[in-house]
C-alpha cells in the first residue's frame, strides 16, 4: 500500500499562503471569515462550494519517484506544495508560483511541466519524477545531467538548478539539443537569476552527447 510519511498528516487548510495572494491581503484593511475561510473584504465571493455541500478536498494516489503515495488534500494544493509541504521533497523549488520561472519543473508521466500550475488533485495515477528521483543511489551515481552541471560549473546559488536539470532532461528527451541555440530556446522556460546560462547550455549539450 502507498506510504504516507509523517509530514503528510498536516491538517487540511494548512496552506494559509494560498488562500489569497499576499497583495490582496496587504491592500485590504480588514478580512472577514466566512465558513472558516478568510476572504478579503473587497472580494465578493461566489457562493462557496461548502454551502452546497460539494467537497473542497479530495484524495489522490500517485507515484512519486517510483514510490506509491496517497494523500488527502485541499483541492487548491498544487503539485509543488504537495511535494514540498506534504511529502518533504524540497528539492523542487518555488520561485514565482505562476509559471514564469521554471524553478518548479518536474516530469509528470515523462513530460516536463510546471508543478506550481498543476493541481495535485488531478494527478490520480500519475507518475511524477523530481530531482530526488534522479540519483536514488546517492551522490556516487549521479544522473549524467547532474554530473554535467557539476563539471560545467552550471550554477552559483543553485536555486534554479533542480528545475534546470528536470527541464534539461525533458529537452534532451524531446531531441531539442542539435545546437547551442536550439538548447537556449528550448531551455528558456527556466530563469537563472545568477546568469549561469552559458554553462547550463554546455551541461545540457554534454549530457545530450552521452545519454
Amino acid at each position, binding site marked *: 500500500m502507498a506510504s504516507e510519511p509523517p509530514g503528510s498528516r498536516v491538517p487540511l487548510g494548512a496552506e494559509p499562503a*494560498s*488562500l*489569497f*495572494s499576499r*497583495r*490582496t491581503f496587504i*491592500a485590504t484593511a480588514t478580512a472577514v471569515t466566512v465558513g472558516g*475561510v478568510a*476572504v*478579503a473584504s*473587497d*472580494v465578493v*465571493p*461566489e*457562493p*462557496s*462550494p*461548502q454551502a*452546497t455541500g*460539494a*467537497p*473542497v478536498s*479530495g484524495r489522490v494516489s500517485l507515484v512519486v519517484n517510483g514510490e506509491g503515495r496517497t494523500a488527502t488534500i*485541499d*483541492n*487548491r494544493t*498544487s503539485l509543488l506544495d504537495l511535494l514540498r509541504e506534504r511529502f518533504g521533497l524540497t528539492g523542487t523549488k518555488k520561485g514565482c*508560483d*505562476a*509559471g514564469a520561472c*521554471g524553478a518548479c*519543473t518536474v516530469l509528470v508521466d515523462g*513530460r*516536463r*511541466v*510546471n508543478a506550481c*500550475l*498543476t*493541481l495535485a*488533485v*488531478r494527478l490520480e495515477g500519475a507518475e511524477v519524477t523530481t530531482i530526488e528521483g534522479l540519483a536514488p543511489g546517492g551522490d556516487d551515481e549521479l544522473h549524467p545531467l547532474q554530473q554535467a552541471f557539476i563539471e560545467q560549473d552550471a550554477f552559483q546559488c543553485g536555486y534554479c538548478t533542480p528545475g534546470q536539470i528536470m*527541464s534539461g532532461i*525533458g*529537452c534532451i528527451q*524531446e531531441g*531539442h539539443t542539435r545546437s547551442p541555440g536550439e538548447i*537556449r*530556446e*528550448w*531551455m*528558456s*522556460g*527556466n*530563469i537563472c537569476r545568477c546568469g549561469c546560462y552559458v554553462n547550463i547550455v554546455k551541461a545540457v549539450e554534454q549530457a545530450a552527447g552521452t545519454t
Partner: protein
Amino acid sequence: MHPFSYTKVSDLAGALAAGRRGGRYLAGGTMLVDLMRESVERPSVLVDISALPLGEITATAGGGLRIGALVRMAEAAAHPSVRAAFPVISQALESSASAQLRNMATIGGNIMQRTRCPYFRDVTAACNKREPGAGCAALGGFNRAHAILGASEHCAATHPSDVAVAFAALEANVHLLGPDGERSVALADFLLPPGGTPQREQAARPGELITAVEIPAHPRPLRSGYLKVRDRQSYEFALTSAAVALHLRDGVIHQAKVAAGGVGTVPWKLPAVERLLIGERPSQALWAEAAERAADGARPLEHNRFKIELLKRTVERQLRVVGDLAGGTA
C-alpha cells in the same frame, strides 16, 4: 485562492451537464490556476475536461485541418500535418510561453486565455474587464504593452495569444458544443473587442465547450510564417507580431493572409495590407508599400506610440521572409 470542488468528466454529455450547472472547464490549467491564485478568477466548481475525446488533429475533406480543443500546444506544434501545411501555426506555438507550459496548455485554453494586462491581474487596481464599471487603470497608467488597435474608452488590453494570430490570418473557425447543440463561429467573431462590455471576451455561451479549431483549406502551395517581436528573445509575450501566408502562381500573389498580434484588443487582421498584395509580383518595394498600411486606424496611448512603427517593420520583415520562400523577390 477561493475554495472549489473538483470533478473530472469522462464524456461530452457529462461535461455539458456540469457546465450547465455553472462548472468551469479546466483544460491545461496554466491560465486558470494562475488567475485563481491571484483571486482574479473565483470559480466554485472546476470541471476537469482533460479526459474528453478532443485530442485529435484530423485532415478535413477539402484540405483543411481540424485541431481538437484538448490538443496540447506542444503536440500541435510538432504535428507533421500542421508543420507541412501551416508552418505559421507551429512557429506561433513554438514562440509561445515555455516548453513546460506548452506541454500542459491546450489549443482550446489558448484561444480562451484572458489578457496579461498587469492591472487586470492585480485585484487592487481598477479594471473594467475584472469588475465592470470600476474604470481602467491602464488608460492613464503605464500602457507601453497595451493595444493601439481596437481599444475603447473602457479597456485597452491586448489579447495575448500567438497562435490565435495565426488562426486569425488563416480565417479559422471555432467549433462549439453547448446545451443547444453544435455550432461553428469564425474566430474573428469569437474573440470580442472590448467596446462597452470589456468583461465579455469571447462569444461562447454559458456552458459551451470548444471542441475544435478548424483551419479551412487554402490553395497550395501556401507559404507561411510567424514573427514575434518582444522585450526578450524567448518566454515573453509579443510587443508586435505578424502572421503571414502567401500563395503565388506564375510569380503573382494570388492569396495573401496577414494578421498582427500584440497590438490589438483581439488578433488583428490586416485586410488593407492583403488587398495591396493580391495580383502583384513580389518585390521589396511591394512589401514596404503594403506594410505601410499595417497600422491603419491605430490610436496609441501615452507609452505605446512606438508600436506603430514597430508593427509596420514587423509586417514588412515577415512579408519579405515568407515572400522569398514563396517565390523569391527580385
